[in-house]
């Protein structure tokens, strides 16, 4: 509101009425306010306050007041009479102007009110065209014509009047603004000058404050709150700077008044627009720092609320409060302890009330983030006040506390009148709160229960984000809460956690540990136990099995070594430590083992990943569990071949869950850190591994448990439970899972060569010599009782030599060895071995001497002709790939006491010798040579070499061997020779037995064992042409092709092949062809033809073909091809070819004439005459078209395959050939 001083001459009533119109009309239209210093122009509404002119109201020299400054002086006149003007008005005006000039108020305006009434009244005096206005302008408005304004007929509602009003208003506004701008500029300049003087001594902030505030007031009046606020902010900053400078050692004198001790802490007062009381204090220089700050803030607050920025108020308030506290410290102002708390508390509430007063609930709720700081601050302060005044202590306030309270209350002063009627004023609240403990608690504490919940929430967030120190602190608070609330279990859990918290000092940890132990040790009902999570107490770091394979037979000893890291600061005595086990029955008694299990039992050790408490700063949410990968192999159940293999992640559920939670607001995983771990319960009744009375020292402890191993199954360790008095600590789930196997084993009997006796470990058992074999009996679950015996069924081929001094060796798993005697009774059929009593799962070993009789030589005939038809008794000899020796599997049948079935065992013996025989001829003499080769690694002595005929002695065999004893070294051979002499004809078949005694080298005669070799010599005739003993090259020989049907024709064939020849026999046709591809033979005459074979088994057809050998020497027989001949018409009767023979079988080369001269006949050992039944032949049925069809492989057996015939050179007559094969 501008002060406009008026001076009027004329109708005062009229003027007065005009002022009111003016005052109303003036602010109607906004004016553009152009400002200095480049500030943005603004549209403002000017308001004016019209004041009667008085000389003394004019501003004096040095007056800084802007509010009361007369910006425009108006002189009103309604004079329309020139005379009057000249007579008095002009003079009056001059005087006015002079007084203005003396006070340097150059802004004025003269308003001339014209009215028709006046004109009419003074009609005579009116000067046409020379109005009084012109005169005035001429007299006063020196070049400033606009300073004289005419207002025509102001009271009439004419357009002319309106027009003149408008122009007057415009003029006034313009002039007023001009004056204002000018004066404001001057004021600002002055103010700046004053501010620049602040370094001079004697400068006073308070004075300056008043000046600048004046400016702020002006702006406020102009509704320029922003500008007004700027003034206060500048003051604020200036003051702050001074305080900071003070802190830096630059002291201003005027600050002294602000350093006075604080006597009043009544808080902010924001309800008055201007707190004149404080303002006066500032003006007088008596304000304290808090007063100044309070006043400044109340003004800022008012302006901000005008500006609709209530939230800024809250922010600034918080800043102010913090700042004030700091500044008081900085200025070293002495304050009564607690006074600032009062001040801050009251101020916070005052601000909040003020804000609440200008906002509705919805706004408040939406902007709670702005107010929460104040609320928190107030709460903090109230809390510290409560502590200070002894209101929260258990015993209540002491007298000292009460005195302090009284002092504090005194400093609050009296309640302000503005808030007096409010029931909830901050003042009242504080007073009430400080007055009694109950009230304080009502005001401060909601309740412990709530606070515990809040703390738990906070804890959750700290834990999930890995803030260990806050976690510890919050836990401690929670512990307090829980103790107060009597929540024993939770308290114990928290105490245990805290006892293991490394962030706490040892004393604190011991305290909490003692809390737990004290509870645990309380006498009382033992049945009720508090169950806590083990993770707070101790950590299972390692688990180790002894023996490491974690797989034992039932009844054995299995120990489990646990490594527990005790987190307690002191050693704790445990009544019991138990691990509960869960079991699954094995499938059968086999040791089924998964791949994962093997990983676990690699060294029998399982390492457990440590809980997050051990990882220090890392939060639970950041802990990524490592991948647990297992190899999985899928094997075929039948042959154990690998079907597929894969890698499986065993803990995907954990990993995936973690992934999810990281996207949401990371819910804390169930870590030991989290107090709200799932309630743990120990499963009762399960089997347990137990150990009693253990003391856990802080740090790693090793505890050995003995696992129960009674029933064969897989045991899984599930839970771990530690009992300390009333308290149980339970690890609800051991992960990764730990298991051990208990198996049950059937008794097992094995027989193997006794390594000790033989020279080389790889030495096989030799047939024909007494050999030591080792019987090993794994007793398994069977306990061998006294009198239990093994019954060996005796066999002829392998007699057992019971020795009297036979001892057995009993090996226990714990490496102990016992020797006990063994008694062996042999009867005709059975050898009975009485076993010494042996506990289960022991090993019983004993040796027995056995002899494998070498099968006599008939089996060793080169053609492998078997003389012994009984398969059951025949130990099969076969050639072994590893040794040159022929091997014999000797079966043993043993009746064991634990089984109703006989145990069949096989021993492999090796025949140390290889024999061959040959018939040698020298002229007409015949010799039989037996070649004996020692294929074993042992050196033998050979004695009593004999050759005899098996049946009647038709021949005389004269030995040409001189030595009776002979050394036969390893891998050496011996040849023995006998001359054959005969009287009669040579028998067609000569069956001989070669026998010799042998023993390993350097053993006495008694050790000699016989060796027999049966063989058979046969005379096989080869027929040379007539007159000749042998085929000769270049001469024709006869070749007899003999075709034999070996199989019965199939039924279908019989039915279909309806051809019958003249004999009434059914026949099929075959085609044969002599096809000698190697050009050894020349076929003379027809080389091929067809034969009709009768459809009966063993039907034989013989064909004679003439061939001529082309070379001398051993020639293979010519090849004969046999094909099926299918005639083109089934009805055609085919004349049976007299030559035709059927089916292949034997082709033997025959001479045309048989020469039976024994001396020249070549005798050869014959192979088997028939390889019986080795080939099947099916007669192919005829088809309608004549064609040849080959037999499928295997249908034709060529009897003379790879046989050779000796052909003599053409000219040589005198050499006698000896053929020995």
């Amino acid at each position, binding site marked *: 509101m501008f002060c406009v001083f008026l001076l009027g001459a004329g109708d005062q009533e009229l003027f007065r009425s005009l002022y009111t119109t003016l005052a109303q009309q003036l602010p109607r239209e906004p004016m553009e306010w152009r400002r200095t210093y480049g500030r943005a122009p603004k549209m403002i509404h000017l308001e004016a306050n019209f004041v009667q002119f008085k000389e003394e109201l004019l501003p004096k020299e040095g007056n800084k007041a802007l509010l009361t400054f007369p910006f425009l002086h108006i002189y009103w006149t309604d004079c329309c009479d020139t005379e009057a003007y000249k007579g008095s008005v002009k003079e009056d005006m001059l005087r006015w102007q002079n007084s203005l000039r003396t006070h340097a108020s150059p802004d004025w305006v003269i308003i001339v009110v014209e009215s028709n009434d006046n004109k009419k009244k003074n009609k005579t005096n009116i000067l046409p065209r020379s109005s009084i206005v012109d005169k005035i302008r001429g007299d006063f408005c020196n070049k400033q014509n606009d300073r004289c304004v005419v207002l025509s007929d102001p009271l009439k509602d004419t357009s002319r009047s309106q027009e003149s009003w408008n122009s007057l208003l415009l003029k006034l506004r313009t002039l007023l603004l001009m004056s204002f701008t000018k004066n404001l500029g001057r004021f600002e300049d002055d103010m700046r000058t004053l501010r620049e003087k602040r370094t001079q001594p004697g400068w006073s902030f308070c004075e300056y404050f008043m000046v600048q505030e004046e400016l702020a007031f002006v702006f406020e009046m102009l509704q320029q709150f922003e500008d007004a606020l700027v003034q206060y902010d500048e003051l604020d900053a200036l003051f702050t700077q001074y305080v900071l400078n003070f802190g830096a050692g630059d002291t201003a004198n005027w600050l002294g008044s602000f350093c006075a001790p604080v006597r009043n802490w009544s808080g902010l007062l924001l309800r008055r627009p201007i707190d004149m009381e404080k303002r006066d204090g500032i003006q007088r220089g008596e304000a304290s720092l808090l007063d100044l700050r309070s006043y400044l803030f109340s003004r800022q607050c008012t302006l901000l609320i005008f500006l609709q920025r209530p939230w800024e108020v809250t922010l600034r308030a*918080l800043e102010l409060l913090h700042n004030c506290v700091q500044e008081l410290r900085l200025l070293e102002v002495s304050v009564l302890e607690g006074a600032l*708390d009062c001040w801050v508390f009251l101020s916070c509430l005052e601000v909040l009330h003020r804000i609440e007063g200008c906002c509705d609930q919805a706004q408040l709720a939406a902007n709670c983030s702005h107010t929460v700081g104040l609320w928190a601050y107030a709460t903090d302060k109230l809390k*510290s006040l409560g502590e200070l005044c002894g209101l929260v202590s258990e015993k209540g306030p002491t007298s000292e506390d009460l005195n302090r309270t009284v002092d504090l209350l005194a400093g609050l002063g009296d309640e302000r009148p503005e808030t007096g009627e409010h029931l909830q004023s901050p003042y009242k609240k504080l007073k009430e709160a400080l007055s009694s403990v109950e009230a304080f608690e009502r005001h401060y504490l909601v309740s412990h229960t709530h606070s515990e919940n809040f703390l738990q929430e906070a804890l959750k967030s700290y834990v999930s*984000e890995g803030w260990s*120190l806050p976690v510890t602190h919050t836990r401690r608070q929670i512990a307090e809460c829980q103790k107060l609330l009597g929540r024993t279990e939770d308290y114990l859990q928290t105490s245990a956690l805290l006892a293991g918290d490394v962030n706490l000092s040892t004393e604190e940890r011991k305290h909490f540990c003692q809390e737990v132990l004290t509870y645990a040790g309380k006498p009382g009902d033992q049945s009720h136990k508090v169950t806590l999570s083990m993770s707070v107490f101790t950590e299972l770091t390692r688990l180790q099995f002894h023996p490491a394979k974690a797989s034992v037979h039932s009844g054995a000893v299995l120990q489990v070594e646990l490594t527990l890291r005790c987190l307690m600061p002191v050693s704790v005595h445990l009544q019991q430590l138990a691990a509960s086990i869960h079991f699954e029955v094995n499938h059968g008694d086999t040791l089924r083992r998964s791949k994962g299990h093997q990983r676990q039992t690699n060294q029998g050790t399982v390492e457990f990943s440590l809980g997050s408490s051990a990882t220090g*700063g890392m939060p639970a949410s950041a802990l990524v569990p490592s991948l647990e990968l297992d190899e999985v192999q899928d094997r075929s159940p039948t042959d154990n071949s690998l079907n597929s293999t894969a890698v499986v992640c065993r803990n995907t559920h954990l990993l995936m869950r973690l992934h999810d939670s990281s996207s949401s607001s990371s819910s804390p995983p169930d870590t030991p850190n989290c107090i709200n771990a799932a309630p743990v319960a120990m499963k009762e009744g399960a089997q347990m591994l137990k150990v009693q009375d253990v003391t856990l020292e802080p740090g790693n402890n090793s505890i050995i448990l003995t696992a129960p191993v009674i029933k064969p199954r897989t045991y899984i360790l599930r839970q771990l439970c530690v009992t300390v008095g009333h308290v149980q600590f339970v690890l609800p789930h051991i992960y990764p899972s730990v298991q051990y196997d208990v198996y049950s084993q059937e008794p097992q009997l094995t027989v193997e060569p006794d390594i000790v006796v033989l020279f080389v470990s790889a030495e096989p058992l030799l047939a024909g010599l007494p050999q030591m074999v080792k019987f090993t009996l794994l007793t398994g679950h069977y306990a061998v009782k006294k009198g239990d015996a093994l019954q060996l069924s005796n066999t002829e081929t392998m007699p057992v030599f019971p020795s009297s001094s036979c001892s057995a060796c009993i090996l226990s798993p714990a490496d102990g060895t016992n020797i006990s005697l063994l008694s062996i009774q042999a009867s005709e059929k059975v050898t009975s071995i009485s076993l010494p009593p042996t506990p289960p799962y022991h090993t019983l070993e004993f040796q027995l001497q056995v002899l494998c009789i070498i099968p006599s030589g008939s089996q060793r005939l080169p053609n492998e002709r078997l003389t012994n038809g009984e398969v059951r008794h025949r130990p099969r000899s076969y050639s072994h790939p590893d040794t040159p020796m022929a091997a014999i599997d000797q079966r043993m049948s043993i009746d064991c006491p634990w089984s109703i079935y006989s145990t069949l065992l096989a021993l492999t013996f090796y025949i140390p010798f290889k024999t061959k025989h040959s018939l040698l001829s020298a002229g007409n003499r015949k010799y039989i040579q037996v070649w004996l080769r020692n294929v074993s690694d042992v050196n033998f002595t050979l004695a009593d070499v004999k050759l005899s005929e098996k049946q009647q002695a038709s021949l005389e065999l004269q030995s040409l061997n001189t030595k009776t004893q002979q050394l036969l070294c390893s891998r050496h051979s011996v040849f023995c020779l006998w001359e054959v002499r005969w009287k009669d004809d040579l028998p067609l078949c000569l069956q001989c037995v070669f026998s010799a005694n042998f023993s390993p080298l350097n053993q006495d005669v008694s050790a000699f064992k016989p060796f027999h070799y049966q063989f058979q010599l046969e005379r096989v005739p080869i027929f040379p042409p007539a007159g000749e003993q042998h085929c000769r090259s270049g001469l024709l020989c006869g070749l007899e092709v003999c075709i034999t049907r070996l199989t019965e024709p199939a039924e279908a064939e019989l039915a279909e092949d309806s051809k019958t020849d003249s004999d009434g026999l059914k026949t099929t046709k075959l085609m044969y062809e002599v096809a000698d591809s190697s050009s050894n033979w020349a076929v003379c005459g027809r080389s091929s033809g067809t034969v009709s074979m009768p459809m009966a088994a063993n039907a034989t057809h013989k064909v004679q073909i003439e061939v001529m050998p082309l070379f001398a020497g051993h020639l293979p027989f010519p090849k004969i091809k046999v094909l099926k001949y299918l005639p083109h018409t089934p009805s055609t009767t085919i004349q049976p070819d007299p030559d035709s023979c059927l089916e292949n079988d034997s082709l033997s080369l025959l001479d045309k004439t048989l020469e039976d001269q024994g001396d020249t006949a070549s005798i050869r050992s014959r192979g088997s005459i028939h390889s019986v039944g080795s080939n099947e032949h099916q007669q192919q049925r005829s088809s309608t078209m004549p064609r040849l069809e080959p037999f499928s492989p295997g249908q034709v057996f060529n009897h003379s395959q790879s046989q050779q015939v000796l052909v003599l050179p053409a000219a040589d007559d005198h050499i006698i050939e000896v053929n020995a094969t």
Partner: protein
Amino acid sequence: MFGDSIRKCLAGLQGTQTWRVGIAVIAKENYPLYIRSVASQSELKFHYTVHTSLDVVEEKISAVGKSLGDQRELYLGLLYPTEDYKVYGYVTNSKVKFVIVVDSSNTSLRDNEIRSMFRKLHNSFTDVMCNPFHNPGDPIQSKAFDGIVSGMMVQTG
């Protein structure tokens, strides 16, 4: 707590300050990567302060993120003042937060100084992250980083 501060008031600047400056690096998931304050006796309070400031950081990020998109000012300014100290925040583009807590009585540190401290910190942090042997997300144990922080603490404290 307050009585303590009064005593300090009376004792003036000769009294030992709890801590003058503390620096914390907080991971995106709000767990501390690096946290260090000058005096250790009120480390707990420092931790609390930093943790509390994270809410303000979050609020500021979300408010800024809406209006400016990726053209974000990393420096968040004064997060919140308290009676005893001021908390300043800075957020990298990967949402790693730097928090500097300065004693309120330390008047020499203005916005610009704090800004340059953050820039230095950020540079050093980038170096740490460039270390191929550093596993992002692990607590920072770099000596170089430690040195930078120590330097700042000496300078400001």
